């Protein structure tokens, strides 16, 4: 009997929470990012940008924007769960997120089924938006990123034999490895120019066996399209094994942890990413960098910039739609044309991907240094 009473009270409390979260003069926007787990750095950097954007642009259509942040814990199941929690419990009209393509591909179908638009900040795998009318993104996709790094290996490094080591548990890594291989073979015209490929899994810490195998194939450069923590350890172990060839990475290497963990071992590593504070592309870029440094005291990462843009893209769509109806927001997002973001001018293609310039960063004296831009093909 007592238990019944308690469950009734609990239910009432739950209903209160439900109703308490939505007011007519407020717009609820959800955020799901990996704030803990192996991708925590990426999620937290993105959140810095989202929070800054929310501070700078706290209203839309005269209504106050309320931000609901959920931690998806770098877990695919949790990613789907956080999206439904945002939709069911917080009644959000749009969602920003998430770092990590696998996480986005797990949250995406939930949002699509509920008809809530999602603006991806940095998931670069093509399948995140393909076939999902409600998923958009502020970043370029991996076929382009693979092309950037393949060109870098071929032209800047002059490499004709490369090896790849991928994280087989991450869609991002497997996808990027594939596109890099494709682009490199296209450049050399020789399928054998990618001399070998090896794999590991997220949370692995020992890569010595894979690296010893790759060393035996005598590559001139090694492409490691994994996440920052793993790749930093991997390069450390490679150098300890006496492998001296240049390493290349993707945007997921951009995190302070990459350099903290890798130290002197990651000197000279080149990665592709979305944006560099050293090379502002729009007026909004300079405004963003100044505001960011004032708030946090250090220079923003590409992910902070993408988080900032993703939030503003949603606000822009709400304004153009003149409505907070999720369907109207989705339709307005799909028509985004030359939106001035911190990472460049953003136009959505038919799949909901931004077509943008890519940036190369090189690690020099313990810092990521701007190493050039690559225009979209």
């Amino acid at each position, binding site marked *: 009997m007592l238990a019944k009473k308690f469950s009734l009270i609990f239910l009432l409390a739950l209903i209160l929470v439900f109703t308490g979260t939505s007011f007519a003069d407020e717009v609820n926007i959800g955020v799901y990012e990996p*704030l*803990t*787990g*192996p991708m*925590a*750095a990426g999620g*937290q950097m993105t959140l810095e940008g989202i929070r800054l954007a929310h501070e700078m642009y706290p209203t839309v259509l005269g209504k106050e924007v309320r931000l609901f942040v959920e931690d998806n814990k*770098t877990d695919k199941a949790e990613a789907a769960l956080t999206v439904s929690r945002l939709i069911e419990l917080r009644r959000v009209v749009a969602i920003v997120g998430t770092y990590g393509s696998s996480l986005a591909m797990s949250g995406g179908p939930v949002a699509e089924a509920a008809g809530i638009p999602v603006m991806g900040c940095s998931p670069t795998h093509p399948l995140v938006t393909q076939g999902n009318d409600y998923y958009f993104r502020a970043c370029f996709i991996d076929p382009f990123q693979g092309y950037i790094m393949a060109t870098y290996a071929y032209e800047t490094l002059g490499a004709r034999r490369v090896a790849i080591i991928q994280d*087989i548990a991450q869609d991002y890594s497997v996808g990027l490895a594939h596109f890099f291989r494709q682009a490199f073979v296209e450049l050399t015209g020789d399928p054998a120019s990618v001399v*070998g490929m*090896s*794999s*590991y*899994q997220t*949370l*692995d*810490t*020992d890569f*010595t*066996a*894979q690296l*010893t*195998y790759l*060393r*035996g194939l005598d590559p001139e450069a090694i492409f490691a399209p994994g996440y*920052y*923590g793993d790749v*930093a*350890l991997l390069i*450390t172990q490679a150098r*300890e*094994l*006496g492998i001296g060839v240049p390493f290349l990475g993707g945007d997921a290497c951009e995190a302070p*942890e990459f350099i*903290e*963990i890798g*130290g002197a071992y990651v000197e000279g590593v080149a990665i592709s990413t979305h944006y560099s504070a050293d090379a502002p592309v729009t007026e909004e870029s300079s405004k963003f960098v100044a505001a960011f440094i004032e708030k946090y005291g250090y220079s923003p990462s590409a992910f902070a910039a993408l988080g900032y843009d993703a939030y503003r893209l949603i606000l822009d769509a709400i304004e153009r739609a003149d409505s907070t109806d999720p369907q109207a927001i989705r339709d307005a997002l799909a028509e985004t044309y030359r939106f001035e973001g911190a990472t460049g001018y953003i136009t959505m293609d038919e799949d909901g991907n931004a077509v943008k310039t890519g940036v190369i960063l090189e690690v020099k004296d313990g810092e990521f240094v701007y190493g050039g831009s690559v225009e979209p093909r």
Partner: protein
Amino acid sequence: MSLTHFFQHLANGVYLGSLYALIAIGYTMVYGILRLINFAHGELLIVGAFIAYYGILIFHLPWWFSFIIAIALGALVGVSLERVAYRPLREREAPRISLLVSAIGASFFLQNLGLVIIGGRHKSFYRPPFFAQTVQLGDVTVMNFLFVLPLITIIILGIVFFLVYRSKTGMAMRALAKDYPTARLMGININRIIAYTFALGSALAAIGGIMYALRYPAIHPLAGVLPGLKCFIAAVVGGIGNVPGAVLGGFILGMLEIMGIAFFPHLAGYRDAIAFIVLIIILSFKPTGLLGEQVVEKV
């Protein structure tokens, strides 16, 4: 695969194997005496590593002193864990399965406590330059650490043997392992001996954690889960409760992981699968583990 590469793989295997062996010793020792699988062992590894990390970072201690403090505090954390999570259950004579669940709970608690206090981002663990220096043996490159690690494992093995088989407290521990009530009747202070066992097991975990962090210098609160799990399995394969068995199991697991890739490079993504298939085969032939003995159930 050339001979050079084979030797390089062998060195890598010895490395990983002695790391697993070192961690598995702590696991198996606590089990051997208390018949309790301390699932929080993986978390105690990380607790040790983090204390050492902060000792160097915040208190600017010399690394070796910070390591000693970490081992001592790690033991203290283990004893407190026993006091809070295991002893109350034991005193109410809870079934063993409840203790196991409590251990899993403690493991989750420590993980999440770590996330709240420290945050989920990787921290870079300090490595004394000497450890990271590499030595060239022909075409095989190894770190100095490779020579240090098996040595430490062997020394720890010796210390554990001495404490359990040659000291008076060790005798009490073994008496406890055989028969609780009788040990109590013989005037053994059960709670003290169990606390002592936990202190020892947790100190071993802290040593293991520090060694793990020295080898893979990226630590975060969830970093103990995988090594904890793997070393538990290593201890089972060696025969849980048997200390030399844990060392053997650890070496076998480490070697299997490395050699699996060495011989089947195209299946590198299935490394764990290869290693664990072999372990399942071993267990199906020797269900009590390689050096484990058939335990006669007490009536």
